[in-house]
């Protein structure tokens, strides 16, 4: 980061002014996750003024890029070297637009902390953050972490930013671990009910099989295998099912990742009519929650989407009951609160952490929890 960059200086000035005046800023990149979380408040701080990749070392498995860089641009760059972000962050955006137009930025990807179909196999956004430069609520330019994975010097502030929804600071630049694209990928389709699907997914998880992604909906299970050529062939023979043609498979997983799949199109229409789309995050071995609504299960059972008109309390209780939590992902009425309530000690730590980074409450007030 060049501190003399006028765009950077502009951001610093606005943060320092807001800090001094007690006003608030709404940090926004492409706005592709504007629908996610509690309502955005504050004057717009557009992060797209800072863009570009400052360094990319394929042999070091690291790329360092500025917050406003379009996610599509970063992924295209990595693809030229046969590498990728293995956690498949969603771009969202309007269905039918091409990826480049959807506007998702790298900063927003980290701040939202959302990962795609490969999450259970590949890890989370946070697992790939190696370092970050941020602007805290005092307008101080801080860098934590670095460009190396083995790094235990001090607290892992850069990883803390993943999923923080802009409440701790403006992510200016981030160093991400990248991995090579797997040599072979194959999608299999199998017919089975929910209980059998969950049992099978957990059984496969305990074996050395290259299961990279899964999706169960209405009696159909789609499984993506990804890894060494020999491993994918051997797994196909073990698991069975019908192989899905490559382009159709790629389109399916892309639709799932970016929420353009028919499940989500249907869910979004129902949300317009007053239903809620819940994201349920539970242990993979959790028993079926038997909630009324349209259910899509991913991540080997660890992430489910539920489109339902059930009261929020019922959904939350069911998720907590199996050791997980429920997020009100999309709804006209979010008065029940988007994110699951925190225990008293965690809530206190959250409040104190917020104050330690952003003492005047400049950034994205209330975006994660009211009062934070």
């Amino acid at each position: 980061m060049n501190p003399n960059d006028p765009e950077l200086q502009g951001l610093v000035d606005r943060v320092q002014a807001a800090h001094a005046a007690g006003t608030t800023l709404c940090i926004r990149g492409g706005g592709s996750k504007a629908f996610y979380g509690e309502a955005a408040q504050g004057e717009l701080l557009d992060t797209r003024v800072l863009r570009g990749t400052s360094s990319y070392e394929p042999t070091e498995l690291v790329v360092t890029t500025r917050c406003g860089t379009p996610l599509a641009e970063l992924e295209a760059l990595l693809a030229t070297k046969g590498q990728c972000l293995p956690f498949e962050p969603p771009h969202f955006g309007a269905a039918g637009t091409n990826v480049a137009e959807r506007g998702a930025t790298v900063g927003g990807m980290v701040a939202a902390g959302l990962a795609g179909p490969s999450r259970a196999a590949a890890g989370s956004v946070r697992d790939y953050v190696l370092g970050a430069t941020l602007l805290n609520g005092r307008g101080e330019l801080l860098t934590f972490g670095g460009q190396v994975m083995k790094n235990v010097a001090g607290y892992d502030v850069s990883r803390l930013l993943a999923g923080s929804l802009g409440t701790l600071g403006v992510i200016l630049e981030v160093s991400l671990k990248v991995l090579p694209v797997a040599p072979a990928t194959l999608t299999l389709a199998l017919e089975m009910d929910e209980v059998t699907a969950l049992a099978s997914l957990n059984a496969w998880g305990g074996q050395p099989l290259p299961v990279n992604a899964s999706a169960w909906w209405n009696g159909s299970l789609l499984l993506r295998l990804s890894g060494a050529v020999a491993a994918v062939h051997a797994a196909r023979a073990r698991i069975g099912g019908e192989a899905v043609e490559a382009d159709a498979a790629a389109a399916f997983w892309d639709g799932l990742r970016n929420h353009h799949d028919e499940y989500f199109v249907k869910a979004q229409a129902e949300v317009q009519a007053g239903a809620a789309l819940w994201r349920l995050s539970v242990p993979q071995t959790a028993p079926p929650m038997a909630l009324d609504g349209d259910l899509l299960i991913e991540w080997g059972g660890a992430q489910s989407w539920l489109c339902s008109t059930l009261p929020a309390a019922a959904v939350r209780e069911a998720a907590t009951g199996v050791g997980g939590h429920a997020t009100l992902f999309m709804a006209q009425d979010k008065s029940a609160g988007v994110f699951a309530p925190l225990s008293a000690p965690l809530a206190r730590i959250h409040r104190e952490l917020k104050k330690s980074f952003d003492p005047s409450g400049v950034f994205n007030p209330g975006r994660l929890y009211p009062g934070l």
Partner: protein
Amino acid sequence: MNAPLPASAALDPADAAAEIERRNARQREVVAALAPLVPAHALLWHREDTVPYECDGLTAYREQPLVVALPETEAQVAALLRACHALDVPVVARGAGTGLSGGALPNKLGVTLSLAKFNKIVTVDAVARTATVQCGVRNLAISEAAAKHGLYYAPDPSSQIACTIGGNVAENSGGVHCLKYGLTLHNVLRVRGFTVEGEAVDFGSEALDCAGLDLMSVLVGSEGMLAVTIEVTVKLIPKPLLARCIMASFDDVRKAGDAVANVIAAGIIPAGLEMMDKPMTAAVEDYVHAGYDLSAVAILLCESDGTPEEVAEEIGRMEAVLAASGATRIEVSQSEAQRLKFWSGRKNAFPATGRLSPDYMCMDSTIPRNRLSDILLAIEAMEKKYRLRCLNVFHAGDGNLHPLIMFDANDPDEFHRCELFGADILETSVAMGGTVSGEHGVGIEKLSAMCVQFAPAEREQMLALKRAFDPKALLNPGKVIPSLARCAEYGKMHVKRGLLPFPDLPRF
């Protein structure tokens, strides 16, 4: 501890006696407060009883705590923390005491909270592929318990036979296999513990995420400074069916360094990728007699694991890259016994060095992989500058180096030169775009180096983060994040990512 500060003037004898009496009075106060909370055998304060706790694996630094507490139940842990909080007594948590950076060095006015008795494996869930264990369970014991299900716990620090999972969480420990399988952070799902006030707190989840900020990412690696870990739920993964290791010799350090980069560039993520330099190879061959190539300037151990088909495919690709990178000799293990023999030298680097020198200091830093040969050459030059020998092993796949600087602790000048040598390695690592601690933590050992890696505002932000968890700074105070005053005394420039410091932005 790496370029230590100049010693302050010795206390006047009258002042020294007063200080001893103050300390004794404080000790009586703390013992009186804690004794009702634990069984009699669980509280130690006589010097002959607390001496075993006066240091961890960084044996050059020792301190007597006021009291050592060895609670046996979670309720006792909570009660001890509440009592210490009420009295403003510092608390230093301790697992097996194998840490290499002094993270468990006692506080001389504090309580050492030993968690060694918390050694039960609570559950191993083979279907869910998780294990829930108390904080004092040894790292290797987790894999041993999971073995009958064909599962194991991947992070394998070299001390795994002795170190505890609670300590691993504190340090975000790595090991030989972390390039492929991740650090402790990537393999831990949930941590139950206590805040500094003795309040129960639960971080993470058995789901793949939890609501709110990702607090696990700061808790893991926080060196006992944010909370006390009491129980950990870890991820277990299927044990690979097969592992094979390639031993490759190189006649040139740069070729060996380039070979490491070439393996990664080829899209291969080895299960292990380690390097030994020539003097280290000679030292370990003398100790284990594994048949290492003594003429090699550097030896690479490159491991592949997985199904037999995966391994066959990957070993072929690895061999091709190593040969193309100029390896003078390539041997592939043909059996499990031979694979273990290849590793035996690397795994015995420390004891082998111990035979050659009365003492040695093990350094730990990380640099980008492509600077491996540069740092090796820089260390060679430092050997001449500081007139001490240094043997090197690397987790080459991660750029994480462990130089072992040999010295004689009975010679104060050698000890001093050794610390300067170590500091030079750390600061050179930062200048090359790396970090001052790859896996051993900062503890007390690298406080001065932290002044070089982080600017004042960054250190202040980390101190503020700490205060969010522990406003009175009672959990392991004085470790990891140096104060402004300490950095001012140390006097070195902040060298960031190979760039000279740039002027501060103007403040309003």
